[in-house]
């Protein structure tokens, strides 16, 4: 039986919040604890789960549907409020038609029927799978995403003296295009990290909230003249809060062909970019990539010199 306390599981990197009633919580926790690398943290009410979500860092939530003070969908609502990137599994013996989804129309949850013969075995496997593959994210990933992330990881961004170069470059790009904002961002697994930005104070954004995660999938420069006209972006509160109206993004492509980042322009009014401007933005992206590669090569060469 698992009765992991907050203190016990806090040292583990993959804590799964399990929510079920007093009678069945041990079954769920046992299934999760039985998976290598997972540790169960327990709650038996919606309120208890919501409290733990604010206190603890969890990588997944597994909840039953029927709870004393609400339903599993209320737990999932709390997950979306407090930890929107965390995947959820609804582990229930209720069929889908018995589940009230009326106020959750676009909330995606992994549904696992508890009545399946191998349900508890599947629970551990599925929980691991949704964590490993970030299975509920709201953006598309390239088919070779792991190779792309490996390419990105080869760059020692924190150790490279690129900040000043990139800041000069984004100043130049913004001036050249007379754009409100110009930035250089690297697209990590779950977020975009901004290395330099002219005209705004950007540090990082959750990947599904960025336009760049769409732009990186295009071969050519991607232009959104007005995000209000595009269903991919016009319900995005982050973009709305930033006041973004138009966007243009060009790929930073590593020598092995993997796209690791973007050089982008944002404006606070509707705007288009002609073919020449798009080509120029692509040139700037290639310049940024060259700077990154040269700095990386220099660092590697110096490392080899020291080693000798």
């Amino acid at each position, binding site marked *: 039986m698992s009765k992991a306390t907050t203190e016990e599981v806090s040292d583990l990197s993959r804590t799964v919040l399990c929510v079920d009633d007093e009678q069945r919580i041990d079954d769920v926790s046992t299934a999760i604890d039985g998976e290598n690398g997972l540790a169960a943290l327990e709650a038996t009410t919606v309120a208890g789960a919501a409290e733990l979500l604010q206190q603890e860092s969890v990588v997944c939530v597994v909840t039953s549907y029927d709870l004393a003070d609400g339903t599993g*969908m209320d737990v999932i609502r709390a997950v979306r409020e407090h930890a929107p990137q965390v*995947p959820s599994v*609804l582990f229930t013996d209720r*069929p*889908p038609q018995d*589940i009230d*989804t*009326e106020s*959750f*129309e*676009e*909330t*995606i*949850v*992994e*549904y*696992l*029927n508890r009545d*399946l*013969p191998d349900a508890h*075995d*599947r629970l551990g*496997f*599925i929980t691991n*799978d*949704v964590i490993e*593959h970030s*299975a*509920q*994210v*709201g*953006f*598309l*990933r*390239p*088919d070779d995403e792991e190779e792309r992330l490996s390419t990105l990881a080869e760059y020692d961004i924190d150790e490279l003296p690129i900040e000043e170069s990139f800041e000069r470059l984004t100043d130049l790009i913004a001036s050249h295009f007379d754009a409100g904002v110009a930035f250089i961002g690297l697209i990590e697994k779950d977020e975009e990290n901004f290395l330099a930005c002219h005209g705004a104070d950007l540090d990082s954004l959750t990947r*599904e909230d960025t336009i760049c995660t*769409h732009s990186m*999938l*295009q*071969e050519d420069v*991607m232009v959104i003249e007005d995000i209000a006209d*595009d*269903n*991919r972006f016009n*319900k*995005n509160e982050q973009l709305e809060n930033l006041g973004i109206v138009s966007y243009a993004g060009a790929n930073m492509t590593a020598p092995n062909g993997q796209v690791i980042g973007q050089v982008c322009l944002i404006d606070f009014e509707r705007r288009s970019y002609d073919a020449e401007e798009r080509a120029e933005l692509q040139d700037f992206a290639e310049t940024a990539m060259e700077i990154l590669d040269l700095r990386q090569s220099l660092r590697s060469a110096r490392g080899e010199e020291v080693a000798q």
Partner: protein
Amino acid sequence: MSLATEGFDVDSLSLGPIESGTSILLTGEDADTLQAVFSQLVAADDDERSIVLSTGSGGRAVQRDLNSARTGAGNRASVLTCEGPAAGDDIQSVDDISDLTRLGMDFSTLVASAQQGSGRFRSGIMLCSTIASEIEDTRSLYRFLNSNFLTELRRGDGIGVCALDTSADIGADMSSTISGLQTSFGAHIEVEKTGPGQATLTVDGLGGEETVDVSL
């Protein structure tokens, strides 16, 4: 949890066995031609099940289309339809196409049921563009595809086909949307109607790039 096994035959389209786990993006601007190619790809062989989410055809019509593509395939199909009533165990109806929460649960339940049998399945969404046009936030569609479509292919022994009518208004640039989807799917088949019952398929990702003329 099952392991990938031998490929899935689609002899009628002159495509070699498709590797288990393959996700196929099917695009075209003629809905009838798209439907015919979709049925050929998704129709289950004797030891397989089809799981079809249909936005524009009733359950019986989907089963008939599958029967036309492969003898008896309609009897090996579970259909989730946004058009018309439920019927028997194999046809379920969807009340609200924009309720992706429920749609996802229903779809994964059908896939899980199919896996209780032989385990081999062909899943399909016809048409994904209709869902895109009905929902408010495209991110929800991507979550749905990631969680309920691509995930099942990664975990199980099956192939999946997601059809997009390129003439539909999805509230976003179609070309850019297809470019994005293409990178997430293992293969892309572009369907062009060339005459009555005739089409040219431009296939990318099923062992290379090729153009195939087919009779439907």
